[in-house]
């Protein structure tokens, strides 16, 4: 076991840290520590300009292979990149869905033409993507997609009808990747297709969802005869599930180390409040703060194991299986701790009608952490079934 990074990696750390220090200034200074989860609706235009700035420096898509315009960074250097990005307080990425999901999916499954058409816009920070998976009746049961795609010979296009939900950044995106049923008789994960659609077209309507925070980061997306070019299906009709899930097994959660830096910033704020208002003298609060600190430290150790593991075959390791359940629950607990440290003050808003402080927003927004991306209950099913070989849920 070795905890240290190599001198070359540390040199890389200095390089990215310097670039961020030199560039996160001027018009971008106001973006520091903004635009993360719970704050994704803020400064969209400015953050898109920041994406172009990143691209000019060659700091978008750092994990992509060099042949596709990325930096082909090692796991260690990706870790360092995300750590330094978060440490500098650089803003939440507008391009993360394109860079982390759409791009890698196209690299793995897309045609040459699709790669040439879509990858450059992601690399240059000029075109943004959203993800059309969930539907009102396809939440935890994601394969229960009802949106239909029918091929229209006359126009040589796919025509999509249905409704997507919980689509973050839909109103800020040029494109959406959608799973829809190509075989209307099919059920569950069979008979789906993976489509790339333009958001700016008459058949697509975006409606924001007002959340318990009073803000809207997520949207509903209505597809009413939305069009998709014949060449914009990824893989064959019927292969949509394979394409959509294809990357999950390879996702090693490198960006989670950056996420943990953001968590550390939040915890620091919570501790500062406790020291200031005297809660730090309360023995129960002291225990809970220590527990939060310990929980975050171990989260980092978990990630380090996850990233170091020897299973180069890309299969999910045990540490990766537990990761979502662990961090989501930790983060939710931190939100509760923040309120309990504030005491009665926790209920008082910054301003009317509903302006939340950072910690109030943390408290409310973290309730979504244990729901999106697989609820805690679904995570436990996955852990029990894949990690412990217990019987699968009955499927009708």
């Amino acid at each position, binding site marked *: 076991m070795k905890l240290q990074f190599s001198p070359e990696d540390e040199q890389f750390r200095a390089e990215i840290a310097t670039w961020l220090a030199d560039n996160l200034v001027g018009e971008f200074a106001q973006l520091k520590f903004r635009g993360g989860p719970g704050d994704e609706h803020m400064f969209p235009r400015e953050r898109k300009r920041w994406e172009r700035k990143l691209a000019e420096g060659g700091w978008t898509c750092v994990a992509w292979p060099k042949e596709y315009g990325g930096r082909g960074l090692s796991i260690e250097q990706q870790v360092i990149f995300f750590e330094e990005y978060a440490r500098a307080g650089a803003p939440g990425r507008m391009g993360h869905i394109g860079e982390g999901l759409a791009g890698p999916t196209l690299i793995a499954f897309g045609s040459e033409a699709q790669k040439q058409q879509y990858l450059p816009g992601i690399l240059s920070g000029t075109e943004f993507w959203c993800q059309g998976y969930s539907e009102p009746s396809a939440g935890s049961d994601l394969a229960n997609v009802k949106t239909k795609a029918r091929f229209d010979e006359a126009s040589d296009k796919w025509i999509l009808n249905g409704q997507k939900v919980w689509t973050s950044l839909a109103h800020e995106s040029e494109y959406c990747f959608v799973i829809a049923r190509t075989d209307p008789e099919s059920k569950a994960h069979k008979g789906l297709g993976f489509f790339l659609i333009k958001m700016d077209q008459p058949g697509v309507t975006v409606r924001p969802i007002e959340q318990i925070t009073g803000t809207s980061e997520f949207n509903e997306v209505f597809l009413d005869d939305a069009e998709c070019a014949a060449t914009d299906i990824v893989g064959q009709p019927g292969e949509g599930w394979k394409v959509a899930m294809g990357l999950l097994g390879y996702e090693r959660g490198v960006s989670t180390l950056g996420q943990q830096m953001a968590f550390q910033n939040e915890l620091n704020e919570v501790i500062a409040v406790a020291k200031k208002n005297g809660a730090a003298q309360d023995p129960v609060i002291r*225990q809970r703060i220590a527990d939060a600190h310990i929980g975050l430290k171990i989260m980092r150790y978990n990630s380090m194991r996850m990233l170091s593991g020897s299973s180069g075959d890309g299969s999910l390791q045990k540490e990766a299986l537990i990761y979502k359940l662990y961090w989501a629950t930790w983060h939710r607990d931190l939100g509760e701790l923040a309120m309990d440290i504030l005491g009665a003050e926790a209920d008082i808003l910054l301003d009317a009608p509903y302006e939340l402080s950072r910690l109030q927003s943390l408290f409310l927004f973290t309730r979504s952490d244990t729901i999106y991306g697989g609820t805690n209950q679904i995570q436990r099913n996955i852990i029990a079934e894949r990690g412990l070989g217990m019987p699968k849920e009955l499927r009708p």
Partner: protein
Amino acid sequence: MEFAFTQEQEMIRDTAASFLKDASTSAAIRSAMASDLGYSPELWQRICSEMYWQALHIPEQYGGMGLGYVELVAVLEQMGRYLLCSPYLATVAMATNALLIAGSDSQKSEILPQLIEGKTATLAFNCGGNVWNANAINASYRHDGNDLILNGEYRYVLDGHSADYLILAAREEGSSGDDGISLFVCEAENDGIQRSLLPTMDQSRRQASIQLNNLRLSKQTLMGEFATAAKSLAKILDLATIALAAEQAGGMQQVLDITVDYTKARNQFGRSIAGFQAIKHKAADMMLRNEVARSAVYYAACIADDALSSGPLADELAEAASIAKSYCSEAYFKNAGEALQMHGGVGFTWEYDVHLYFKRAKASEHLLGNSSYHRERVAGVLLD
């Protein structure tokens, strides 16, 4: 960065696992539990002469293997997993560490080779109560010519009734806190030392009380300088704490394994109870805690290596020990309790092994500081 066992470390772990699976069976554990000694002397000799586990992290100049704490932790994890009854924790993770950290060259040269041969040793410091630092020391010493006279009573001394050597922590008469602490090493068979076995609920590990009645020791028994051992003691205890946490993580793996196997085999309502979400979700939480515990222990093991070799992260020792022990203590007991519940009625029987782990988990939870003790140590650094 490569936060994973090397191939050599994996081999050490796997060898330990397969040896202990055969040697520390349920029958062997129960036979050790029923004995006065608390472990099998034959098995202990095999461990010394065939496995060399006592010698793992002793430097080669004293006849050891010169490996590190990560290797030690890999073996301790398997010992906890198979509930090995042995004086290993006391001898290696307490007394050997004390000698390595505080012992003089001549003490090391004299005693370490004997420990490698199979002699046992332990550390006595806690004089009762739930404080696990220098404040726990009431035993005291005074100078008498060239000798020292020690008085006091220690409790919770692991394998204290049978150890060949004792490391005694005592304070200069009239001192308090971290001041006046000295460490002594002596043979346990000594006029002035009275040792009594404490009957324990967890019968897989022996504890003793040790009474010092005007024990006369020569100055040669002093480890390091007089009255300045508090720092060394803290380091020794942190290293022991990490070792115990490794045992706890191993125990967690075993209660998870036997429980998942049991629920798969157990049928009710016409199907395996492992198919019920009420069971699956408990098992999933157990696996999460088990993996998290392991991460904390492995990190602490790396830090322990640095602490023993003055590496760059040596200063993190106390925090790493508290992180590992606070997490593992509650998590092991929680998992053992869930294991008992998921076994249903048979979990309540003496015949099934679940209660052995359940009791070991509770005893280990409090030994060397429970979760709230270690959280408060962390809180003190963060908040005060």
